[in-house]
């Protein structure tokens, strides 16, 4: 299991490579990417901020919980913070499993729980020069 909150660009291939073993038939790599629109407004850049120590710990707890719920071999999650631009990978989740059904379900559960539970915030910068913190989800203790 590997979890990182990082200011550096995420090496998605490296992340996927970390999780595969010879017993695995499926590896799923989910990448969240900075897109140029949100709720009808044109976005030009983002800043992510995290309560880093807790975010890492929460991500590890989510991975452990998901690993115990599904027949997966390994998980790796990287979340980038700091200033990102359109097309940058903000989050990457790699999951390996003997069979694909578990890999899909585990991948999906990690990203859904990450978005509900992990203390990370997103400041959007718009084409018109304004900026705003994205209205997020009331955090749910996992």
């Amino acid at each position, binding site marked *: 299991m590997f979890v990182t909150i990082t200011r550096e660009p995420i090496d998605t291939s490296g992340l996927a490579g970390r999780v595969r073993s010879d017993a695995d038939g499926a590896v799923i790599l989910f990448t969240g990417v900075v897109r140029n629109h949100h709720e009808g407004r044109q976005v030009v850049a983002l800043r992510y901020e995290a309560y880093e120590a807790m975010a890492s710990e929460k991500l590890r707890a989510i991975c452990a919980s998901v690993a115990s719920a599904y027949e997966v071999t390994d998980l790796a999650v990287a979340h980038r913070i700091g200033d990102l631009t359109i097309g940058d990978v903000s989050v990457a989740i790699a999951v390996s499993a003997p069979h694909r059904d578990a890999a899909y379900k585990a991948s999906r559960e990690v990203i859904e729980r990450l*978005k509900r539970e992990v203390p990370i*915030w997103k400041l959007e910068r718009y084409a018109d020069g304004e900026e705003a913190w994205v209205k997020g989800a009331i955090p749910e203790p996992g």
Partner: protein
Amino acid sequence: MAAGEAPGTRVRVTSLFFAVYRDILGTSELEIELPEGSNVKALIEAVRKHAAVDELPRHVVVAVNQDYASPETILVDGDEVAFIPPVAGG
């Protein structure tokens, strides 16, 4: 500070503010003293009074020492209490 000291003993906790809460409070961190036995709810009220205008929502989620905690959680000296705005990772 050990429990069971004389009345009037106070606990000192560090409050952390992130994202929109930092904007509201105008700072990322406050050291706040409260009477011993105070809970999270009391800390939140103290923080509300600190803000020039109380723009914190009615319900504020906090983490005590990096775990989400209920308003009834009793604070002890040295606790780190993070005020967690709605999260938007991913």
